[in-house]
């Protein structure tokens, strides 16, 4: 049998192998947590910033998972999910906050994401003249 006759078999074998590996990667979901938007913009430095935020998260196995702030033990949202979850909420803060994805049964921290706070106007030294607080 010449190489030419074996070539299609060899090539198709590589294709099948590569395809199965890629397929395996797709199925292998890792823990992740992301925020959209991930920045809240207030008018002036020092003001509480408000923004509607969507947290998207993925987990490696079905179970009950929660969201909480890094500096607060209180779980602000919990949900039983297979792979993916969504959480919409109103962000309110004067400073950057970090949110954690928690596995409820073990309280293990699986992923984190930051929501930054920015301002159009930095602090004004003329607060007494145009005081707004």
């Amino acid at each position: 049998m010449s190489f030419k006759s074996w070539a299609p078999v060899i090539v198709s074998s590589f294709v099948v192998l590569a395809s199965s590996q890629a397929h395996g990667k797709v199925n292998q979901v890792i823990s992740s947590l992301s925020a959209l938007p991930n920045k809240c913009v207030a008018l002036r430095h020092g003001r509480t910033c408000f923004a509607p935020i969507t947290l998207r998260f993925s987990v490696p196995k079905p179970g009950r998972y929660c969201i909480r702030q890094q500096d607060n033990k209180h779980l602000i949202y919990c949900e039983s999910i297979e792979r993916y979850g969504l959480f919409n909420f109103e962000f309110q803060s004067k400073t950057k906050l970090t949110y954690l994805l928690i596995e409820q049964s073990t309280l293990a921290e699986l992923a984190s994401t930051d929501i930054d706070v920015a301002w159009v106007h930095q602090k004004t030294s003329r607060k007494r003249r145009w005081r707004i607080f």
Partner: protein
Amino acid sequence: MLKKLWWTVVLLSLGSTSLAQSSDTQTPTKDTDNFFWNIEANMGGVYFKSALEDHRQDSFIEYLELGFTLELFYKGFFVQTNKRRTNPFDVEFGYQLHTTDKWGVDFITKTYLSGFSGEDIDSDLRERRLGTGHALRLTHFIDDAIFTVDLAVLTAALGTKSWLVESYYSYLIAHKNWEIYLGTGLTFYNAETVNYYAGIDEHDAATGLDLYRPGSGFEFVVEANAIYPLNEDWTLKLGASKSRFSSNIYQSPLGLRKGETLIKLGASYVF
């Protein structure tokens, strides 16, 4: 004389600002205790119904508003635009004479009255010049509100005894990321000022109008302005104001409306 002296003070203050910038070992940032600056480029649309009945916004370009606003503060001297008022191009030059947590006293120069000429209304009426005034401003800070009273002497070009007292109360409502300013004001114009702007003198009477000397008068205004941050560089601005003159002003044979109306919608780029 007073005007010359005032402009000298303003120019010196601006000069000293730039000198300070170049001589400091540390470059002044945008925000320090002694130095502050803010520049914004404004663009948007405006609907303006002026006091003159015959004045109209005829072309599209007259509905557009493009320009810059500048704020500078250096050791008491300042150039500022009053964000609490609807007209952001209302520039005030001044010096902070005294300030406490509750009270402030400034010496300012600003334009209190817009002038007009006969060309604006297709007439041979005499020109009414800009009503620029030098004023002492007393400010009272009340939590989220400010109350100001300006005692202003208008430029001699209007008459040597032209003056006004402008009071304005502004209240801030901070709702989420919005800043909403609600304001109301009352201005008293003395007889010489009203006669200059709304009166009909011998020159104007030559156009066929009756002589008219209305005497002192009032203007009452209500305003609402809102600012919203679109992102770190851009803000959305909305504004509306409505004023009402005392009857002796709007009954002038000049053809005046009972008041002025201003509505604005635009965006500003903050440098």
